[in-house]
């Protein structure tokens, strides 16, 4: 049906979304429209998302995580690769053919205020997708909107007639979530959905995502820069750096036994409220700056900041390969093995892990 050969071996049966060798590029223009260079924002990314699963995507600014999400919903479509959603490759679909797909594929953005029309009432905002797909009568829609507002914890009688500026950040994000849910999608792409919220509100909204997941059997692609938060909601986590996937695997393995040096550096940068664990040594902090995405380093893109980098890293791009636990993949020539004296939380678990089962 898809015409694309899967490529990687892990194409599971229950995959809701399969992303294969996705590449997204933007052409930069100089003055007068002259071609100024090609920015490869996402480079050869492949992953699967199973039904009912939450995949967390973590990376810093410029890692391409938001571009990846936008490429998945075809806004704009990627330059190369395949995005297979429920068995259909979305890349190259016409606008008309995309429309029914979008019912099942919704998005929640970081800033609720810029993603809600300031002149519309909450009820109208949440009802808009129903109107766009001409679903139900006016009365039906109103009923559906009210039940959804209830579901996300907003009293429809109080909030239905308000406009976005009369809402707090947490309430506005709840409205955005209600709007994403109104068409009963299968998959919701969440791009930093709680980053702009205060910590107590953030916890409320995170719990809402969890509640909806279990009640409506949703799948999420959950994008965030905060590793701790991603851990809370995800079944599996993928780590991105400069457009490439570094590591992907089950939450427990990623956090207890990170294989990629970048993942370890990210984990070590998380401030911890417990003073017993707090205050990382300065030498675990990753040094330097993100290289220019216009001119990424050869080979492994992380090598310029990696403490383990060797010559091979400059000449050969590391491929994703399975290592360690089931479903744990890493793109690194010299991964941190479980037996290495991993600092801090991993502690002294010297499981006799065979060095590497290559391929």
């Amino acid at each position, binding site marked *: 049906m898809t015409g694309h050969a899967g490529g990687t071996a892990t194409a599971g049966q229950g995959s809701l979304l399969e992303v294969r060798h996705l590449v997204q590029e933007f052409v930069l223009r100089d003055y007068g429209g002259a071609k100024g260079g090609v920015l490869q924002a996402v480079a050869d990314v492949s992953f699967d998302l199973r039904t009912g699963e939450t995949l967390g995507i973590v990376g810093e600014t410029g890692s391409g995580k938001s571009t990846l999400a936008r490429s998945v919903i075809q806004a704009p479509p990627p330059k190369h690769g395949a995005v297979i959603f429920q068995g259909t490759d979305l890349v190259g679909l016409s606008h008309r053919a995309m429309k029914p797909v979008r019912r099942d594929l919704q998005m929640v953005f970081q800033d609720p205020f810029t993603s809600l029309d300031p002149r519309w009432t909450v009820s109208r905002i949440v009802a808009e997708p129903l109107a766009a797909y001409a679903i139900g009568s006016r009365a039906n829609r109103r009923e559906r909107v009210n039940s959804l507002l209830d579901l996300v914890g907003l009293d429809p009688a109080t909030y239905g007639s308000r406009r976005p500026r009369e809402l707090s950040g947490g309430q506005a994000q709840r409205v955005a979530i209600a709007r994403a849910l109104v068409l009963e999608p299968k998959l919701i792409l969440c791009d930093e959905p709680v980053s702009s919220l*205060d910590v107590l509100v953030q916890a409320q909204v995170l719990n809402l995502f969890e509640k909806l997941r279990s009640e409506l059997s949703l799948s999420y692609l959950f994008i965030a820069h905060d590793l701790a938060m991603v*851990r*809370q909601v995800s079944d599996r986590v993928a780590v991105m750096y400069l457009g490439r996937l570094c590591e992907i695997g089950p939450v427990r393995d990623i956090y207890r036994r990170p294989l990629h040096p970048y993942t370890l550096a990210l984990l*070590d940068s*998380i401030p911890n*409220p417990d*003073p017993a664990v707090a205050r990382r040594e300065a030498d675990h902090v*990753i040094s330097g*700056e993100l290289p220019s995405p216009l001119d990424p380093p050869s080979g492994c893109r992380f090598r310029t900041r990696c403490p383990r980098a060797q010559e091979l890293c400059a000449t050969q791009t590391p491929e994703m390969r399975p290592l360690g636990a089931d479903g744990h993949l890493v793109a690194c020539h010299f991964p941190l093995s479980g037996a290495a004296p991993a600092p801090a939380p991993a502690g002294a678990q010297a499981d006799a892990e065979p060095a590497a089962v290559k391929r």
Partner: protein
Amino acid sequence: MADPLLEVCDLRVRFRSRGSVVHAVQGIDFSVEPGQTLAIIGESGSGKTVSAYAVMGLLPPTAQVSGSIRFKGVEVVGLGEKALQDHRGRNAAMVFQNPERSLNPTMKVGAQITEAVRRHLPLSRPQAHERAVELLRMVRIPAPQRRFHEYPHQLSGGMRQRVIIAIALACEPALLIADEATTALDVTTQAQIMNLLLDLQQELGTALLMISHDLALAASYAEEVMVMYAGRIVERARAADLFGNVRMPYTRALLDAIPRTDLEPHVLLPVIGGRPPDLSAVMPGCAFAPRCPDVRQDCREVVPPLERHEMDHWWACWHPCAKEAAS
């Protein structure tokens, strides 16, 4: 201990807006010792930034400030603009959240640093230039001579924040206030900047007042933490003590709401409902009472004062959480 560098007594800040009065800060007391690292944490609207602005003398004329802010024994409240300009930079300097907005996009980085240097120190142009390059080197900007002639847009977010820190430290202030200085940055950059701030603080002996919404960040880097809620300080303790021994239910709620890497996936976070109170309506009793899980009748009637109950541990609560067993 030495005399406190900064002594804040019963600071109150009110704003008039459209007929109502917003009580942003409702009587706070604290002091900062020379070389100390103190963090003020709280949510949006808790009054943490307004307090910092009051210390800097940066509040707009519409703000009504009462109480006392003494810096090295000199009263800051009520100073004229000219005296305040000397106060800022020499005594206290501030690093803001958004490095894009704190730098002038049309001026070269070096010129912005020398401007600050020459405003406060009697240096000639070449001397100020030299000092600026030295400052850039001090905040670990690679190739400072070259960066001196660059514009802010040529620098990354982390580099820009380093430039801001260089400007703030230009006159070796006794107190550096970092207002959400790393909030706009990535985690790895955040760690770099925080480590830089602490290193510089050690080198120069500057006191550091961190303003943050991030309890975890404050706990990792500050010696002492003050928690603000609705314009008041509700708990103050050494970072090491606070987290094993939280007494104020609000601090407990904040701590519990932080996603942590040692929890299992899909565990619901313990959350409290409600929202911070409207600061234009002063109500009797503890401001946290409507959201507090342990609320009792007296909480709604009388405001609990911030009192020292244990060595270096203050809290403002009639019915504090029980002392936890050391874990």
